[in-house]
């Protein structure tokens, strides 16, 4: 059986060329913005809630115990199961936000909790003797200690948010999303498009990760320079 090789494999040059034409197309930036805004929203919500609940669980062990079954479930259940299940409750357009939230939350939560638990016991004793209020302990003792935990968690979670978010768009065929473009590429055997969009996802994911980590570092530097 004779097959057109281009149908299955394309050269890197052809992918770059397709990328060049893709960015000129009218709906490219709209598609990018559609997926970006939803996935980043999911990440941001997971980051905020993961930090909050991680800190509170570090303070109250009961909360950690209550959250444990949920966190373990999210960590172990395959993302595809969540995506299909969530389609019952969410429209395809909102699915990527929910799924990226779901995948990122346990990573941030677990790292923050681990950071809180491993905070220097000697500094905490100092805080106890000098009666430093909890909020001030959080800002000056816990937060600097959490820094490497947060950077490591975000570095992993940002990539995960894009992978899971786009997977949700593909399975849900969210109209106007990058996932829909990937789905169409698969249906119509447009390997060039598939790889070009994949490159776009990788680039946007890496750039956003760099930007986010830089902003976070600047925020920490500013706080520590007070």
């Amino acid at each position, binding site marked *: 059986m004779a097959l057109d090789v281009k149908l299955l494999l394309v050269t890197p040059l052809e992918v770059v060329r397709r990328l060049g034409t893709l960015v000129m197309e009218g709906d490219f930036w709209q598609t990018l913005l559609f997926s970006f805004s939803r996935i980043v929203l999911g990440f941001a919500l997971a980051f905020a809630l993961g930090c909050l609940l991680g800190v509170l669980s570090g303070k109250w062990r009961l909360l950690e115990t209550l959250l444990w079954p949920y966190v373990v479930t999210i960590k172990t259940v395959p993302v595809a199961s969540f995506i299909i299940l969530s389609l019952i409750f969410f429209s395809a357009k909102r699915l990527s936000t929910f799924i990226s939230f779901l995948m990122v939350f346990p990573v941030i939560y677990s790292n923050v909790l681990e950071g809180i638990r491993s905070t220097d016991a*000697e*500094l905490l*004793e*100092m805080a*106890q*003797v*000098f009666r*430093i*209020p909890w909020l*001030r302990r959080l800002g*000056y*003792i816990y937060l*600097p200690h959490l820094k490497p935990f947060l950077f490591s968690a975000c570095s992993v979670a940002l990539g995960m948010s894009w992978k899971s978010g786009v997977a949700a768009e593909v399975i849900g065929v969210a109209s106007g999303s990058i996932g829909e473009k990937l789905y169409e590429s698969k249906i119509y055997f447009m390997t060039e498009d598939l790889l070009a969009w994949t490159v776009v996802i990788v680039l946007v994911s890496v750039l956003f990760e760099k930007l986010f980590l830089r902003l976070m570092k600047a925020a920490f530097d500013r706080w*520590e320079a*007070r």
Partner: protein
Amino acid sequence: MAIVMEKLTKSYGQKLALPPFSCRVEPGEIVCLLGQSGCGKTTLLRLLLGLEAPTGGTVTGLPDRISTVFQEDRLCPAFSAVTNVSLALGRQVPREDIVALLVELGLGDALQKPVRELSGGMQRRVAIARSLLCPADLFVMDEPFKGLDEDTRRQVMDTVLARTGGKTLLVVTHDPEEAAYLGGRIVRM
């Protein structure tokens, strides 16, 4: 009110960290605790600070507010000397007073540097400043002058004596000369 320790003891399992210790400390008194390493001096201070519960014995007359210099500096390394001191004191002490004491202790050039960039002796002085500014009635200091050169040590000891004047001061030291300079009662453990 005098602080009275009666047969105060602390064990960790089979290990005796503090053999039965009794002592009476009058208000405003300076007491230097001298003893070999491992005799339980630091454990005794931890019991007084409420960081450990005694295995046996009693202690009465402890004031509500106790300030300390730990054996380690226990500073937040990313923050400046001023921030480290004000962190422990909140708004009780004006910033100008914090700066004035740090300058008095020879840290005028290092006020805004992260303490991790300061030398060991400078970090020690930050820890001493934090303790001295705390509005306490009892000051408990565990080898507070270690790591300081001779001149600085005398200067810091003078500051400690001036700032804790009238308050009870309990100092752990290995150095009999240091104890003599502080001029208080020497208790051997």
